[in-house]
C-alpha cells in the first residue's frame, strides 16, 4: 500500500522552481532517506508532504488522501527545522497541549510516557527556554511521536543530538518501523540515515535524480549515492 506519494509536484518561489516534476512513492512500513545538497529542495518537499504548503503543480497524498484532510493530519508526525514547542511552557505542558490538540484519550499519561522515553522526565516541569539544544530536540521528537503517527516526516532529525540521543532516536525510529510506521526523512547525516533507510531518494536542484532501494554499498559507504548518481 502506498503511504506517501508525490505526483508531478512543482513548487515555485517567484519564478524559481524549487521542485521540478517530483514523482515519489513510498510504501507503508518503509523508510525513505531524502538526501541532497543544501538547496536541493528536501525541506520544501517535506513541507508540501506535511501539508504546510500547497504544490504549485501536481499533487501529494498520504494514504491516498490530501495531507490537509483533518483525519490525515492526525496520522502525520513532523519534525522540522524548528523544534515547534513553546519556550514559555514546560516540557509537560507542551506535550499535554499537543496531546489535547490531537484528541488523545489521556494527554497527561501520553506526555509522561514520552518524556520518559526521551529521557526528559526529570525536567518535565522545567520551562523549555531553560533547556539545552539537545534537550529541546528530544522534546521535539517526543512531540512528533506523541500521538502514535503512522507517517513520520522528519527534516534533519539528528541535528543537535549527541551520540546517545542519536542512538535513542534511531531506536525509536526502528520501533516505529517495526510497527508499520512509514518514515520520510531528509538529512545530511548519511550514516545514521542509511542505517535505517529501506529506500533512498537523491534530490538535485529540485529534481529526483535517483530513487530506489537502499543497497549494501550505500550502507557501507554513505558517499556512494553521491558518487554513483552524482549531481549531474
Amino acid at each position, binding site marked *: 500500500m502506498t503511504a506517501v506519494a508525490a505526483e508531478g509536484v512543482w513548487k515555485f518561489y517567484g519564478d524559481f522552481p524549487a521542485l521540478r516534476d517530483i514523482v515519489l512513492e513510498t510504501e507503508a512500513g518503509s523508510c525513505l532517506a531524502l538526501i541532497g545538497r543544501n538547496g536541493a529542495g528536501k525541506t520544501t518537499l517535506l513541507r508540501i508532504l506535511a501539508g504546510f504548503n500547497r504544490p504549485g503543480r501536481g499533487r501529494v497524498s498520504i494514504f491516498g488522501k490530501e495531507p490537509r484532510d483533518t483525519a490525515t493530519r492526525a496520522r502525520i508526525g513532523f519534525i522540522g527545522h524548528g523544534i515547534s514547542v513553546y519556550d514559555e511552557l514546560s516540557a509537560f505542558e507542551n506535550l499535554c497541549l499537543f496531546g489535547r490538540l*490531537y484528541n488523545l484519550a489521556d494527554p497527561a499519561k501520553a506526555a509522561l510516557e514520552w518524556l520518559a522515553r526521551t529521557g526528559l522526565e526529570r525536567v518535565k516541569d522545567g520551562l523549555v527556554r531553560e533547556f539545552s539544544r539537545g534537550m529541546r530536540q528530544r522534546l521535539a521528537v517526543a512531540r512528533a511521536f506523541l500521538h502514535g503517527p503512522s507517517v513520520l516526516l522528519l527534516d534533519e532529525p539528528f541535528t543537535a543530538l549527541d551520540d546517545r540521543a542519536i542512538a535513542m532516536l534511531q531506536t525509536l525510529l526502528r520501533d516505529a518501523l517495526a510497527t508499520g510506521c512509514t518514515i520520510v526523512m531528509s538529512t545530511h547525516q548519511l550514516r545514521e540515515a542509511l542505517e535505517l533507510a529501506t529506500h533512498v531518494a537523491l534530490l538535485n536542484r529540485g529534481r529526483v535524480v535517483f530513487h530506489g532501494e537502499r543497497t549494501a554499498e550505500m550502507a557501507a559507504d554513505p558517499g556512494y549515492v553521491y558518487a554513483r548518481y552524482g549531481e549531474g
Partner: protein
Amino acid sequence: MGALATSRDAPATGRAAAAGGFVAGMRQSLFVAAKDLRAEIRTKEAINASLAFAVVILLLFSFAFDPSEDQLRVLSGGLLWIVFAFAGTLVLNRSFARELPNDCLDALVAAPVPCSALFLGKALANFVLVLAVELVSLLVFGIFYNVRWYLQFWPLLLVLVLGTWGLTVIGTIFSALTVNIRLRELMLPLLVYPMLIPALMAAMQLSTQLVNGQPLSADVAVWLKMLVGFDVIYTALSLVLVDTVLVG
C-alpha cells in the same frame, strides 16, 4: 424498510457528527486560547506594553488639554476608542508573532485542528487581553477625567464586548496574514485601522452616550445594529478565509 430507516437516519447521523465536530473544534479553540493566555501571563510581553501605552495616552491627554465637562461629553467615546484601538494593536501584533520562535505555527497547522478553530482560539485569547486593558483604562479614565462611566455599566460593557470582538477578529486575521512579513509591526495597523472604521464609529457613538450616563436611545440603536453586523460579517469571513491565509 431497513433502507428507509437508513436514509432517515443518515441526516441525523450527519447532524450528530457535525455537532460533535463543532464541540471538538470549540474545545480545541479553548486549548489554544488557554495556551496563549498562559504564555502571556508568564512573559507579560504584550499586556505590559499595551497597558502602559493606554494609561500614558490617557494621562497625557488629560494633562495636555485639561478638557472641560462639556468638551468631555463630546470627546469621551472617541478618546476611549482611539486609545483602545492603538493599545489593542500592541496585543494583536504579538498574536501570531508568538508562534514564530521555534516554528510553533508549523506544529499548530500540522495538528488535526481546523484552521478556523486555531483562529477562534487566538481571537478569544486576544479578546480577553484587550478587554482587560480596556477595563483598566476605563478605571484610569474615570479617575483622571472625573467621569462616572459606571452609571450605564451593563450597556457600556455590551458595547465594549462588541467593539472589542470586532477589533480582535480583524486584528487576529491580519496578524496571521502579516506574520511572515518583516515590517509586520508597521503593516498590521496600516491594514487594520481602515477596516475598523465602521466598528470604531459605532463604538464611539454608543460609548459617548453611555459614558455620560445616558441610556441607549432609539437614534443610536442603528449604531448597535451596525456593530453587531460588523462582528458577524467579519467573524464569518475570517473563519472562511483563515485556512487560505495560513496554508496558502
